[in-house]
């Protein structure tokens, strides 16, 4: 059976060019960058070249780019490391209700240490209001962290504006750009952010490599103590192949970004149009235009998400859901609840995230399969039976139809 991979927000395939760039650093060029002999120096040079390349692509200085084990570590380091190092200036943090768990759970950990955290609500399309943001900043606020692009619903936040407001109040601004780097235009100087997290495997690079941009002068407590790697701020022998791969992946992504962005956005809008026209009782989640080019997220009434995913998987289609049943908890996604979906609607949600290999044929195949799957599941659903017999109404049609 042919596999159709529409889960690129989860992870992406390493590009062959990226793998080629990485391979020597596993075998012949296996040296430790801290070693003094040529084998080690070549590894050190490779890391330095990768750092310089990435720094150039995001508008940073090389010394402001710190490699980590991934996006979650970068988020944890930014939030916990900054808060702990600057607790003397204040103990209040502002973030949003729809952050990735790497930020949310790091904030919760800080709350247990005595910090106070404001979780800003978002509107029905997933946007943080700059006015709400400003109103939440207090004299004792030291850090604000708002994600660049949401991983579930794809909504893009006004990061430049939020960073500017934060600075007007003397607050340091961090953004989790894991879903955005390589896909959206990301320049730390233009955005004016103080810290930015990213991850290689979301842009056709390897898993296990991420980065935290830390503007020069921003103080963080170390998360990992040990050797003098990463200017003494993050110990552990450098993941040389991963770092080399990250740089190569970002170079390719940036070179192709605009064309690929346009192509994927057209495919995304094609999926939107077909679903809206062909599948009743469906609601688009997130903002219609201020969103990632590859993100399609819908809720479908009268069905539950896991059954939908299993039936689509049986047809070779890899997608994900914000349903409770896939998370091991009984609550559906915190993001879908934050945009105001009732639980029963949030349970029936589906995320398709397109990639550089995604074709129009694949999108069409997936939408066809989705329509069939929903027909099957609705035929089995007591809620749909009640709706058909007029005992209940459609929440989506009554409360959310204006948005579509």
């Amino acid at each position, binding site marked *: 059976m042919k596999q159709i991979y529409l889960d690129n927000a989860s992870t992406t395939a390493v590009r062959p060019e990226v793998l080629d760039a990485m391979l020597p650093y596993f075998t012949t060029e296996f040296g430790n960058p801290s070693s003094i002999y040529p084998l080690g120096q070549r590894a050190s040079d490779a890391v330095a070249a990768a750092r310089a390349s990435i720094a150039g692509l995001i508008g940073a200085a090389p010394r402001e780019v710190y490699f980590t084990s991934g996006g979650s570590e970068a988020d944890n380091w930014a939030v916990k490391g900054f808060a702990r190092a600057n607790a003397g200036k204040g103990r209040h943090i502002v973030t949003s209700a729809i952050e990735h768990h790497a930020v949310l759970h790091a904030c919760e950990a800080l709350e247990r240490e005595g910090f106070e955290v404001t979780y800003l609500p978002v509107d029905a399309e997933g946007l943080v209001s700059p006015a709400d943001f400003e109103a939440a900043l207090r004299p004792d606020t030291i850090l604000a962290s708002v994600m660049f692009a949401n991983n579930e619903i794809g909504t893009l936040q006004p990061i430049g504006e939020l960073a500017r407001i934060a600075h007007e109040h003397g607050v340091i601004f961090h953004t989790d750009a894991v879903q955005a780097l390589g896909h959206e235009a990301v320049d730390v100087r233009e955005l004016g952010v103080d810290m930015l997290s990213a991850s290689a495997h979301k842009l056709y690079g390897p898993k296990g490599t991420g980065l935290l941009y830390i503007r020069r002068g921003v103080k963080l407590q170390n998360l990992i103590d040990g050797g003098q790697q990463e200017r003494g701020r993050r110990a552990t022998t450098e993941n040389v192949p991963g770092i080399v791969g990250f740089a190569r992946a970002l170079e390719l992504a940036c070179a192709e970004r605009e064309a690929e962005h346009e192509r994927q956005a057209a495919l995304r809008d094609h999926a939107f149009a077909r679903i809206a026209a062909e599948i009743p009782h469906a609601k688009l989640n997130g903002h219609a235009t201020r969103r990632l080019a590859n993100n399609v997220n819908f809720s479908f009434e009268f069905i539950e998400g896991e059954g939908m995913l299993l039936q689509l998987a049986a047809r070779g289609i890899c997608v994900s*859901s914000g349903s409770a049943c896939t998370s091991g908890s009984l609550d*559906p996604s915190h993001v879908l609840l934050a945009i105001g979906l*009732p*639980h*029963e609607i949030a349970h029936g949600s589906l995320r398709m995230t397109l990639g550089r290999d995604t074709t129009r044929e694949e999108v069409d195949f997936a939408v066809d399969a989705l329509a069939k799957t929903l027909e099957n599941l609705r035929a089995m*659903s*007591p809620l749909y039976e009640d709706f058909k017999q007029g005992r209940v109404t459609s929440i989506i049609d009554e409360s959310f139809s204006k948005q579509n």
Partner: protein
Amino acid sequence: MAMNYSEAVMDHFTNPRNVGEIEDASGCGTVGNAVCGDIMRVYLDIDDDGVIQDAKFKTFGCGAAIATSSMATVLVKGKTVQEALEVTNKAVMEALDGLPPVKVHCSLLAEEAIHAALWDYAEKNGIVIEGLEKPVSDIGEHDHGHGIEEDEEEEE
């Protein structure tokens, strides 16, 4: 979504038995709620001798919820009302070669759905089915795991 379903669960999810409705059913029961993400409705056709001639279901819920309702209807068909009471959540789980720990509540809901349909039958006919308690028609979130130890299984 690394949900480790047995082949039997996948079979009953992919080809559910007894999906549908029974008109003028002898008993019909609906349990669960949409907020928690599971609703099961069971219809029973019971003859004058108290034998379940037919059983149908409709379920809103995950793969395990659909599979357990399918299996529960298979198990009660042909049984007497009294025998049907022995179709417990354990019996449903065993017939499906087990469920992942986080899905055990689905089998409880399937048992409840059968009981709710039997209760409806008993009420309509003014009889008492020995050992049948009035089912909780709307099991709330807090009752979800009742008595079941759920492993904290973090899924991606």
